[in-house]
């Protein structure tokens, strides 16, 4: 006997993600899910971004790591409220899921928030698969990785709404071909806006900050 089911395996996560999205929309909060491999400079990019945004924009951050609250401590110095999720309680999960975001979001005064940034676990595979109810996804690639990363991890670059190529201050010292990296991103996602910047020197920050401000206003 065959029992038909026709259900998505990740349905529980998707249902929670839709609830999150509805709640964030009602509260008029722009939620940005920031993803990358470990060491691409997500935290530094977000720290500098928040330092620029914070007086104008009321922002909060949820940061995910397997262990430690090192990133939360760094980001708190920007003045934003930060909630750290450690997934070792969940068996060292490789991604943040919608229910973790729902619980972490309860720590914020949502009536008083314009922007909620989620710094996902450093991983170019699994976070791409899990909707958390965000408004937009951003992927960060850095020039100390390979130009072909977008082709190796196509889902991440396909689902992203924008991309950052970070650490461009190091370009003179590396053999990294920035044009090739950008071309590869566009092969996977032809219409994606790509911001070339350095979190260290803040070169190239203006278009990125403008993109966030436009997204928050929308």
């Amino acid at each position, binding site marked *: 006997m065959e029992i038909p089911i026709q259900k998505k395996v990740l349905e529980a996560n998707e249902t929670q993600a839709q609830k999150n999205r509805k709640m964030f929309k009602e509260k008029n909060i722009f939620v940005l899910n920031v993803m990358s491999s470990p060491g691409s400079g997500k935290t530094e990019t977000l720290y500098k971004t928040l330092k620029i945004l914070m007086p104008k924009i009321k922002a909060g951050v949820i940061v995910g790591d397997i262990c430690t609250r090192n990133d939360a401590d760094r980001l708190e110095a920007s003045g934003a409220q930060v909630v750290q999720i450690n997934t070792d309680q969940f068996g060292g999960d490789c991604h943040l899921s919608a229910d973790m975001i729902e619980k972490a979001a309860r720590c914020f005064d949502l009536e008083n928030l314009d922007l909620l940034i989620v710094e996902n676990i450093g991983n170019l595979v699994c976070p791409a698969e899990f909707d958390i109810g965000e408004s937009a996804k951003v992927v960060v690639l850095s020039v100390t990785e390979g130009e072909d990363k977008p082709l190796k991890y196509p889902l991440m670059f396909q689902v992203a709404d924008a991309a950052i190529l970070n650490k461009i201050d190091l370009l003179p010292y590396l053999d990294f071909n920035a044009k090739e990296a950008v071309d590869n991103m566009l092969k996977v*996602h032809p219409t994606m806006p790509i911001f070339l910047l350095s979190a260290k020197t803040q070169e190239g920050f203006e278009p990125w900050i403008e993109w966030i401000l436009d997204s928050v206003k929308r």
Partner: protein
Amino acid sequence: MHEMGVAQQMINIALASIPADIVNLKVERLNLKVGKLAAVVEDSLRFCFEIIAKDSLLDGAELAIEHIPVKVRCKVCDAIWEADGPIFSCQKCKDGAVEIISGRELEIVSIELAE
């Protein structure tokens, strides 16, 4: 990397779908659809499923996986093609927007019970 969680969800969904009035049942097969872009490693999924299914009604059940190819549609010229690599731009409208219409599936289609 999250195959253990996926296997657990599969088992929860399969068990919830079995009518309560069936007694002495054995699940023979789980029919799944897995898209080529789904971030799931098949060997790892089978391994995790086998371990978690032990001591449940799904112990020993076969995982029958239908692999779904990646199909992409160009939003500019409406062309649809099968992508067998990571390049999703349309051959005609190079920088136009595209959408993935299949290849991200991770679905339980049905379960089959032994007669």
